[in-house]
């Protein structure tokens, strides 16, 4: 009698799929996978260490800039006598500018980061803001090494403004960082 249930039939893999089909299929799957990893700027960060390592490095670079800014502020607001230090800190900020774009090259927005996706969407504007920071920092270094102490204040203000100009567009406010998932 014919069974109402489906009956397993013998299935020969090799007769269904000749060797050359298998080879083509295998190679194309490999190729697609490889192509996927080549889109390095569009990672899904957060899985594996790669994304978080980039977040860590770029935060280190930016913190370094912030530390130098804090040092300059500390000297000026407290009237500390540190001849030549403001110029050195300003130069360090200016020299850090070349590190920022490479540090942010890989797009990572998931994870404990305040970076906004606009960085990669408006990459050219991002580069311009970095250049503004470098210019302002070099101006401060020059003013701090110069003869006119009154030139330092406006130069510091301009440097501070360059921080804000970039952050406003490309960074979420620090106060909001508690909202980051993996904080």
């Amino acid at each position: 009698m014919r069974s109402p249930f489906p009956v397993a039939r013998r299935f020969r893999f090799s007769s269904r799929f000749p060797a050359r089909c298998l080879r083509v299929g295998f190679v194309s799957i490999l190729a697609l996978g490889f192509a996927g990893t080549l889109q390095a700027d569009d990672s899904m960060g957060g899985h594996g260490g790669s994304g978080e390592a980039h977040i860590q490095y770029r935060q280190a670079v930016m913190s370094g800039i912030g530390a130098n800014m804090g040092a300059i502020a500390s000297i000026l607001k407290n009237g500390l006598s540190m001849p030549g230090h403001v110029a050195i800190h300003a130069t360090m900020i200016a020299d850090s500018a070349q590190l920022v774009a490479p540090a942010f090259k890989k797009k990572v927005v998931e994870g404990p980061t305040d970076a906004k996706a606009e960085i990669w969407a408006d990459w050219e504007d991002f580069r311009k803001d970095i250049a503004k920071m470098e210019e302002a920092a070099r101006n401060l270094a020059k003013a701090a090494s110069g003869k006119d102490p009154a030139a330092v204040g406006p130069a510091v203000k301009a440097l501070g403004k360059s921080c804000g100009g970039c952050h406003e567009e490309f960074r979420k406010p620090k106060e909001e960082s508690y909202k980051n998932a993996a904080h």
Partner: protein
Amino acid sequence: MSRRVPEAEGRVVQERRALTLALPRRVHREIVFRIPIRFAWIVLLSMFPGSAMGGPEVRPPDVDRGRHVFFATGGCTCHSNYPEEGDAAPPLAGGRGLKTPFGVFYSTNITPDRETGIGDWSDADFIRAMREGLSPDGQHYFPVFPYPSFSGLSDRDLLDLRAYLGSLRAIRRENRPPDAPFPFSWRPTLIAWKWLNFEPLRFPDAPDRSEAWIRGRYLVNAAAHCGECHTPRTLTGGLDRSRWLAGSREGPEGELAPNITPDRKTGIGRWSIADLVWYLEMGIKPDGDDTQGLMAEVIEHGYSHLPKRDLEAIAIYLKSLPAIEHDLRRD
């Protein structure tokens, strides 16, 4: 001195006469007539202010002083739509959406335009709006406009501020109604809100405090209205006075406003006076980081233009407040 005067029926009556008649005639006239008349002149003239012997002079409003008051309020930045229109936003013409838990409220045009701004307001209208939250036609203002704080401003500051605003460019822009659900968009609801939450600000005497502290108290609470953003709100949208300046996750525009009481862990307890002054001038925190959002704007357009002694006053006052532990990240 008295004189006996014989009366018709022989009764003698004591007639009272001026004592000074005993003195020489000249002195009598001086005392009885000339001195009282001069005194009456002094009293009369003192009732007219501005005259040579006038009382407290009501001086005309001072636009320069008004500019100073303007900076102390944060440059009225909420009235310029920088977030959407950038630096090209017509200054003080309103239209900026301020996000609150009750909906989005749009700031008004406070340029001197006569039709869409405040150009045709009287001085009394302006003072009433700032102190009582009432428009010239008697409508209540939504308290996203911080009149509970501005109620503490002095007459002189208010009139000088008005004079400064009146000196700026008139821009035509209609005011937008709020994007909020009923009843929060309905002005009569505010009668209940005011009854629950609004008490005009009064500063008690503080004889044992320095002038700088008193000035700081006035600036922080009235002009700079720090409490409006930096204090948590109650369910009805009033300010939680028990946690004054202890920070709020829901500041205007939905931004977190930090705890600015001198708590060492969760507030500004580790900040020195110099740190605070520098911050209000430059927008740079002690760790070298800048500040963003609405606070960056009120610094840029307002507080950074204040004289150092005012910033020091603010710092001195803030550091004197009770430290309140309030960790906003865990609220």
